[in-house]
């Protein structure tokens, strides 16, 4: 099977929404989430187009100072996204699955598996990602069908009940969350046509989840930390298929798994060391940091959640500026 890095965009445009993106957007614009998601998708498409046009195709004889500066920024970017991913994972596991287990232990098997995959080459990650992509789509379709019984159109009425300012803020947050992780692929061979396809699929799934949440929860959409998981508890099909939320939310873990493997893979190439133990050491250190600083400290987690979209926005601008500088140097 030929590797196609564009596929990763599907996973990367998703994973930040679990426990962070959806709740944050809901906090801004409640039942108008769907409008901000759509606007956010359009903004994201624009950024994706710019990234694909300013393709990074570095060579060893390029400007050394630029390369070092770029590698440093890219390295910090990877560490930051990895930190947030592990905060999301540990909070989710703590909240619903393993409330009595220290987050370090809860996340450890997941991280070991990701390191194992991340240390392989990109083609092998692609092979796993392709299978998980298909399963993920099937699960989302099943979820939506099973939940359709609970939909109430009245829950999203009246439209545009929140201020335009909040809708715009939420759409910026949406675009940041969906596009920022895609910057991991700037040194991969991605084309706008193909990457748009996967970005669109990823966003359609996001919009579908947002629509499902709004149609079911209505004004309660901003009450829950994990609205996307909470609604899964309502699945009751013919009174014999119920309590399946833990199984059916597995596609979120797929997103986190592929994204974490990709982050580890990119980390390996950025530090330019083929030894996987160093990459594993960095990853375990971040997990330990998450365990010590964020897992048992809601205050720190909230600060991280508040600054996250700003930092992501900063990285988007920084990396675009670096890409522009690179294309100027190259020409």
């Amino acid at each position, binding site marked *: 099977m030929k590797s196609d890095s564009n596929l990763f965009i599907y996973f990367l445009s998703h994973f930040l929404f679990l426990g962070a993106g959806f709740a944050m957007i809901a906090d801004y614009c409640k039942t108008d989430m769907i409008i901000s998601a759509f606007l956010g998708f359009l903004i994201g498409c624009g950024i994706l187009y710019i990234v694909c046009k300013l393709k990074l195709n570095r060579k060893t004889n390029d400007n050394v100072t630029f390369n070092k500066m770029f590698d440093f920024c890219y390295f910090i970017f990877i560490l930051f996204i990895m930190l947030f991913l592990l905060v999301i994972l540990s909070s989710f*596991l703590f*909240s*619903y*699955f*393993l*409330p*009595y*287990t*220290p987050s370090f*232990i*809860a*996340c*450890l*098997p*997941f991280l*070991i*598996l990701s390191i194992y995959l991340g240390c392989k080459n990109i083609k092998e990650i692609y092979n796993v990602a392709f299978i998980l992509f298909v399963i993920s789509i099937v699960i989302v379709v099943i979820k939506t069908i099973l939940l359709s019984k609970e939909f109430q159109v*009245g829950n999203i*009425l*009246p439209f545009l*009940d929140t201020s335009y300012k909040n809708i715009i803020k939420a759409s910026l947050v949406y675009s940041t969350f969906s596009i920022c992780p895609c910057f991991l692929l700037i040194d991969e061979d991605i084309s706008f046509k193909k990457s748009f396809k996967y970005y669109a699929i990823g966003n359609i799934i996001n919009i579908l989840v947002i629509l499902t949440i709004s149609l079911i*929860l*209505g*004004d*309660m959409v901003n*009450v829950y930390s994990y609205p996307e998981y*909470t609604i899964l*508890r*309502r699945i*009751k099909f013919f009174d014999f298929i119920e*309590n399946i939320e833990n199984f059916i939310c597995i596609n979120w*873990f797929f997103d986190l798994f592929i994204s974490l493997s990709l982050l580890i893979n990119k980390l390996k190439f950025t530090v330019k060391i083929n030894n996987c133990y160093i990459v594993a050491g960095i990853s375990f250190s971040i997990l330990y940091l998450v365990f010590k600083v964020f897992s048992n400290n809601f205050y720190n987690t909230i600060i991280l959640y508040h600054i996250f979209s700003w930092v992501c926005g900063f990285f988007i601008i920084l990396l675009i500026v670096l890409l522009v500088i690179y294309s100027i140097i190259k020409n």
Partner: protein
Amino acid sequence: MLFLLGGCYDYKEINDLAIVSAIGIDYIDESYLVTLEILKDDQDKDSSGVFSFIKIGVGKTLTDAIENASDKITKGTNFSHVKLMVLSKSLMKENFDNIIDLFLRNTYFRENFYVLGSDKNSPEEILSNKSLSQSSASEQIVKMFQNMNYSSNSNVLKEYNKLVKDYLDFGIDICFSNVSIIDNEFVGDGLVIFDNDNYKNTLNNSYAKLYNILSNNFERVTYSINYNNKFFTVAINNGKVDVNINNGKIIVSGNLMGRIIDNDTDFDIRDNKTLKKIDSDFSVLINELVEDFIKKMQKENSDLLGISSKYYKRSRIKDDDYWKYLDVNSNINFNLNKKGLIYEK
């Protein structure tokens, strides 16, 4: 396999868990009294019933009371299989809003259990009553209320998450069924209604039936008309009703259909004129009852049908008092749709 290893850290055998199937909450002398119904795991394998025992805890806060009850159990309490919550009248009157946050916030509870009130008996009496079958009280109560869909249909069995949604949403008040013990048997005993988080009243079962019709959540609601001391009975089994504010009036419109249950009056149901008269009589009866129900709601300040919410969604005007002063006009059409197995006796 590696994904699942994290779960081994705090693993507990099912035999070491006390599975709580119901929670009763009472509020006496500024203290919470929590009754936990716990499933027995040492029952006879040949018996088909689900058996249980209860533990009671007292505390100044709800958490204290639950912990106090849990401390009396030798095994670890597990709340993820709670099916039913029974609330006493004093709790509903004084501290109803306290049950919202705790059960929504904690991981240990699934928010899809049913909530019932009990204004005549304490939750402890309800959950310790084994009735004749001796099986778990919560099991019997839930089954009884579920099966009432096909008998009197005066049951309003609401899940906790739906209750909380009504509680938090603008322009809709909450209600749920009330359970009592009469002659050692459980009975569905009316409809508990609220104005925001204030307990207002417990309406009788006939109002509960009307609530089910007006919220389009019915299977089989029966009504009878007395014609010269002989009764003609129908069961409403189909149709849709809409309640809205239009031109400064509460308008109830829609079509309901029903089948003949009992034709004691010996009406000739082959005759179109007779059928039209029956339809018209039942339409009048239903419209009168509906108008009376909405007036009762207005009197109690309890917007069970979410009239204010619907008005807000249509007009964007947030006013949860407006509906209380409006006239009611009910225009429901009733039609017989099934005759039963015979034409005449």
